Structure formats: C-alpha cells, structure tokens
C-alpha cells in the first residue's frame, strides 16, 4: 500500500516537473496586446478619403522587411516605401461595388512605440459604405486583432479583423 502511495506521488511530481519544462517558450514570453487601429474618414469638400493606420513600429518594420524580401530583395533596405508597400498589400479598401480604391501614402510619423501611417485617395462621390480588409501582421501573430473605424455620413462604424477574416462592410 505504501509503495502504491509512493508511486502515485512520484508520478504526480514527475507530471508537474514535465509540465513546467515543456511549456512552449513562446507562451512564456510577455503577453502584449497584438492590435492595430485604422481610422477611415471622408472629406466632402476635397473628395478625399483618408486612412490613418496605427501599428506597433517594431512589428511593422519586421513584417515589412519579410514582405520586401519576398517581393523584391533590392527594395528591402529602404524602410519608408517598404512599410507603406507592405501596409497597402494587407490593408484594402473597396467601394460598395467591390472596386478596390487605390490608396497612396501621405506620410508617416513615430509616436512612442507606434507608427502612424497615412494613406489617401480621391473618390468621385461620397462612399456611403465601404468594404474593408485588414490583415496587417496576421502572418506574424496568430492573436493579432485589427480594429478598423470608419466615419461615413455622420455615422461611425467599427469592425474587428482577426486571422481568417476577409472583407467586411462598414457603413
């Protein structure tokens, strides 16, 4: 009876030690909030649709480097066009009919740990609703959640994007 008791205790102890040792290293790392925020606005006077995208600077720098290496190794050293090109490859805005809007970069700035990227495009008339897809950093973090907010015709709409999501309608 005593031997069985000892055996059970040893098995439990071994289980505890093995569990501790085999917890994957990635899980032991800190638990940052993997998220980004994109705001879409429309200025009726100028007819410009503007996107302001906030993303963690170190993450987007690494992701854009990997993207540039895949697309064009020569461009991998130029940070600014590299990051904008990467962002435009994963952040897509389309009008109600599904036609993709051609966004062009309009600047970027660093605020703390964040990088704020600006994109804009001219649209013929007020887009009452938009179709948006935002998969920025999905290839790096499976728990990445991207928040997209749009202010259109006095209404605000918000959508969350996580890996596996496609286009979502904002109106």
């Amino acid at each position: 009876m005593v031997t069985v008791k000892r055996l059970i205790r040893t098995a439990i102890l071994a289980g505890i030690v093995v569990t501790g040792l085999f917890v994957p290293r990635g899980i032991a790392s800190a638990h940052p909030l993997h998220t980004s925020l994109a705001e879409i606005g429309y200025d009726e006077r100028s007819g410009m649709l503007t996107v302001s995208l906030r993303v963690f600077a170190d993450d987007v720098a690494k992701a854009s480097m990997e993207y540039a290496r895949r697309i064009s190794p020569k461009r991998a050293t130029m940070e600014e066009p590299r990051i904008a090109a990467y962002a435009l490859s994963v952040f897509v805005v389309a009008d109600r009919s599904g036609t993709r809007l051609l966004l062009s970069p309009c600047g970027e700035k660093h605020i703390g740990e964040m990088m704020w990227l600006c994109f804009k495009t001219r649209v013929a008339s007020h887009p009452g609703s938009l179709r948006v897809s935002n998969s920025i950093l999905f290839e790096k973090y499976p728990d990445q959640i991207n928040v997209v907010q749009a202010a259109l015709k006095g209404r605000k709409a918000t959508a969350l994007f996580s890996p596996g999501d496609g286009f979502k309608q904002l109106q």
Partner: protein
Amino acid sequence: MNSDMIAFIELGFRHITDAAALDHILFLLALAAIYRPRDWRQALGVVTAFTVGHSLSLALAVNGTVSFPTRWVEFLIPLTIVVTCVENIVVSRSGNTPWRRRYRPLFSGVFGLVHGAGFANYLRDVFADRIALPLLGFNIGIELGQVVVLAFAALGIAGIDYAWAALRRGGAASSFRVRVMVVSSVILVVATRWAVERNPW
C-alpha cells in the same frame, strides 16, 4: 449598444481568452484552486478584488497618471502567480487557515494592479487620443472573459476532485487537499519558469 463599444468588448474578451494570455488565466486558476462550491462567496470576493485592482491600474496607466515600466510589469506578473501558489501549498499543507484567509482579497487586489498594468501600456499607445470608450469596452470584455475562464476552471477543478475521489475513495477532504496541491504545484513550476525567463536584469 454601438458597434464601437461591442468591438472593444470583443477585443478585451478575445484578448483574455486567448492561449497567449495564459499568465492571466493561470493566475485566476491559482486563485480559484482553494475554493469549493460552498465557498463561492469568498471566491467572488477575491475575484472582485482582482477586478477592482486590475481596472484601477488600467485606468491610471491609460490616462497617463502613472507609468509602469513594461519589463518589470512582465516580470512581476509571474511572481504574483508564484506567491499565490506558494500560499495555496503552505496553507494547505499546514492545515491551518490564518485569519480564515481574509487577507486574500487584499492580495488579490494588489496583484490585480500588476496584471492591469500588463496591457495598459499597449492600450494607451494604440488608442492614445480617444481612450475612454476603448478602455471601458476593453475592461468589460476582460471581465466577461474572466467569468468564462473561471467557469471552465470550476468545471476542471470539479473534474479533478471527482477523479481523485473515485480513484482513492479517500473522501472529500482528501481529494480537496490533493487538488490544491496538484493544481498549485503545476502552476507554480510554470510561473517560476516564466519569472526566470522574463527577469529584467
């Protein structure tokens, strides 16, 4: 409720129930490990204290009143888990319950401050100039996520009790003690490893 609020509640809920949030989940599990169904009032008090501490530090950090160094916060989080597990094990082994463990809500509240600081920095960076709604929604989502995690933890713990009682036929007192020891020891080993890996020196 507008789509902004729902989105931020969802963000908080998904954040806390994600496997990557295992440190927060294990802390809740360590807190819950010593309670039986009849102790639900004490359990509720401890979890509420954790929520208050966690919400307070999140609010203070996010509106810029205080600033927490990320590396230290990330090191302190597993330490709070280690201390909780050690307390579980020591009290369970000795059989005494000092002050009927009325100090636990205080500990839990203080540890909640540390856990709230854990993601406050990230939240502040992302939603810098429009923090009120994201903060409120995110916090509600976190609390809802905690309720779900604790519900699953209660089921898991009941399962351990049942399995041990069936295996050993040692009675409720014996299975309760084994459950506290096993759950706390597993979490203690994992959290100690995290603390070593995240040490800020």
